[in-house]
């Protein structure tokens, strides 16, 4: 027992050190100091970003981007408030790292509501966080416009203060791609769905496999795979056996790395292999294997919709591109929608902003955002194809930067 006699002393030290770290941590975090309803103090948006943990690869530089966004808005005068005689009020963010952990996100939103007393919530991202966070907004009566929370069912829980700007929304994810399939020659007849075991990806497959069938495409296979799977031989053997015209990969970019590589290695032939997350990160990981593949891109700077210049400027100053960081549009949309709602309400009165969010159309560089009765948007995406190592928009034709290479020569 002698060996354990120092344990109480050790625990005292440990408690002291933990308390000191916590004090320093809270002192170092962003104090918001919001004054609700003020015409002089900044309007504070409380948000969390997954700066660490598994989703951190998707949010590179977002803190800097958010700060630059506030700077750019404030350079143009800030947020106009009719209740302050048309005076503009600066925008400020309270930003925390949710560590990609739902429980941490819940604690941080609770803290922003109770301690920081932020005016409004924007973010978080990802469906795993988008489930537990909205009840906090509901309890405190704070309007929240979430970013990349794309699972429709999460919005259908009778919330009154919750909206989201995922881009693209599941029911419009591959809308333009399937439209393109009706126009290309030779016309594809069969399709095989390969789905990453994730709520959003499964929702995409569930929706678009029905649409494909309704469009006359025969669904010759549907397989699900876990994010940890490295050896896709069995799954690809099934694809080869089914000989589909289209292979549709509904997956986040990182888990699909071995799948894309092994599709090439095992010589799969198809008219096209389509990826729902054809991103710059994936291109860096698999290189030339992406050549000829099609995918979705929510927005690109040559589409000059409302706020396109602002978004382009913010992204350029931050040093990120849409292809490298495809989730950026939904993030920035959550900020710009909240600003428009406040300006429509003419006040920081949360109930008035809530009413403004219920009605109306909100502007975004990729097109108008209209929410359904659950606060879910209708944002679409453009169809892209990797051509000679570059990403080209191929559909719809009115905004295309190149013609589709069809059937994709690299899969012949």
């Amino acid at each position: 027992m002698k060996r354990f006699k120092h344990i109480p002393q050790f625990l005292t030290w440990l408690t002291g050190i933990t308390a000191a770290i916590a004090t320093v941590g809270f002192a170092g975090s962003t104090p918001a100091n919001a004054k609700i309803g003020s015409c002089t103090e900044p309007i504070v948006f409380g948000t969390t970003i997954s700066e660490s943990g598994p989703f951190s690869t998707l949010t590179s530089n977002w803190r800097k981007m958010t700060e630059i966004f506030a700077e750019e808005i404030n350079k143009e005068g800030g947020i106009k408030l009719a209740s302050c005689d048309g005076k503009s009020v600066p925008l400020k963010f309270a930003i925390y790292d949710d560590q990609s952990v739902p429980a941490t996100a819940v604690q941080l939103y609770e803290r922003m509501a109770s301690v920081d007393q932020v005016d409004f919530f924007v973010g978080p991202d990802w469906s795993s966080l988008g489930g537990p966070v909205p009840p906090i907004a509901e309890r405190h009566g704070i309007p929240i416009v979430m970013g990349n929370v794309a699972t429709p069912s999460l919005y259908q829980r009778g919330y009154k203060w919750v909206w989201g700007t995922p881009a693209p929304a599941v029911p419009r994810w591959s809308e333009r791609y399937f439209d393109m399939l009706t126009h290309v020659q030779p016309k594809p007849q069969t399709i095989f769905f390969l789905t990453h075991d994730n709520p959003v990806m499964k929702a995409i497959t569930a929706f678009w496999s029905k649409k494909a069938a309704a469009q006359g495409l025969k669904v010759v296979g549907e397989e699900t795979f876990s994010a940890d799977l490295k050896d896709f031989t069995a799954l690809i053997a099934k694809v080869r056996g089914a000989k589909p015209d289209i292979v549709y990969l509904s997956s986040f970019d990182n888990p699909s790395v071995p799948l894309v590589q092994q599709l090439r290695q095992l010589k799969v032939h198809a008219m096209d292999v389509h990826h729902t997350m054809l991103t710059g990160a994936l291109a860096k990981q698999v290189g030339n294997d992406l050549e000829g593949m099609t995918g979705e891109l929510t927005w690109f700077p040559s589409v000059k919709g409302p706020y396109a210049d602002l978004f382009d400027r913010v992204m350029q100053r931050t040093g990120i591109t849409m292809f490298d960081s495809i989730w950026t549009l939904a993030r920035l949309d959550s900020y710009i929608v909240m600003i428009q709602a406040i300006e429509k309400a003419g006040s920081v009165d949360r109930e008035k902003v809530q009413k403004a969010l219920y009605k109306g159309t909100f502007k975004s560089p990729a097109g108008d955002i209209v929410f359904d009765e659950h606060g879910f948007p209708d944002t679409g995406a453009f169809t892209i194809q990797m051509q000679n190592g570059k990403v080209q928009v191929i559909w719809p034709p009115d905004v295309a930067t190149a013609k589709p290479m069809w059937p994709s020569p690299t899969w012949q």
Partner: protein
Amino acid sequence: MSIDVVLQVLVGGILVGGLYALVAFGLSLIYGVVRILNFAHGTILAVTGVVASLIFARWQLSPVLIFILLVPSVFLLGAVFYRGLLHPLERRSPLEATIGTVLVTVGALLILSDVTAVLAGPTQRNIMLRSPVIEVGNIVISVTQLAILAAIVVMTLVIHAVLKATWFGIAVRAVTQEPIAAELCGARSLQVKTLTFGVGSATVAIAAVLYVLTFPVDPYMGFGLTVKAFTIIVVGGIGNLPGALIVGVLLGVAEGLVGLFWGPEWSPAISVILLLLILVAFPAGIRWRRG
């Protein structure tokens, strides 16, 4: 379902199973001699694989050179890890030593994974060499895969020969069977254990370089591999290399067939299911007949 599809899956299963067996060799060797269950064993593969792919991406070195560079380094790190962190625990009571080794190896697993993720990023990486493929009917086998299979067979034979015919092998068996008598005969138990830990780690480094030539690795994939290696040594028998190779290949093939007939999302679970079934069916272990 055509026979070609099943044969394609069998080929893939043999390849991946051979790699599992190579991972299990090291774990089996370490447990057989040092009596430590190294929970960080699979993580050594993951981290070495990440380092190998980074070296390839940065300098485009040949995989053979990467192999020559990494295997001795991992041997050294394994030996230092044992001498520095695990050996001191042997002075404790058996219970404290057992708990201590679990804590140290699990701690090493967590630290290695997180540090690698912070330094290299959590994304998947590999050395994807575009080699010619051989097509037999509808079955596709790449030359890289064939080379990996050949390397696995050669490595198995080399390790088997080292254990049977060298001083190190004799010392390993002596320390395993009768440590005091081995010490009296000149086989210093500490040196043998340190060397064994180094060799066990080097074996997993060999598997890592072969693994990244065909599958991607990420810093957090190690524990799943360790569980598979545990299954292989429990079923194949501690220190039984041919047994480990057979069970490894069977496990790889089982994963492939489960993926084919049941769904790929079930493949990772098959090693645990297999382990539980065998523990229930053969509580005293499977006895492999010799000769």
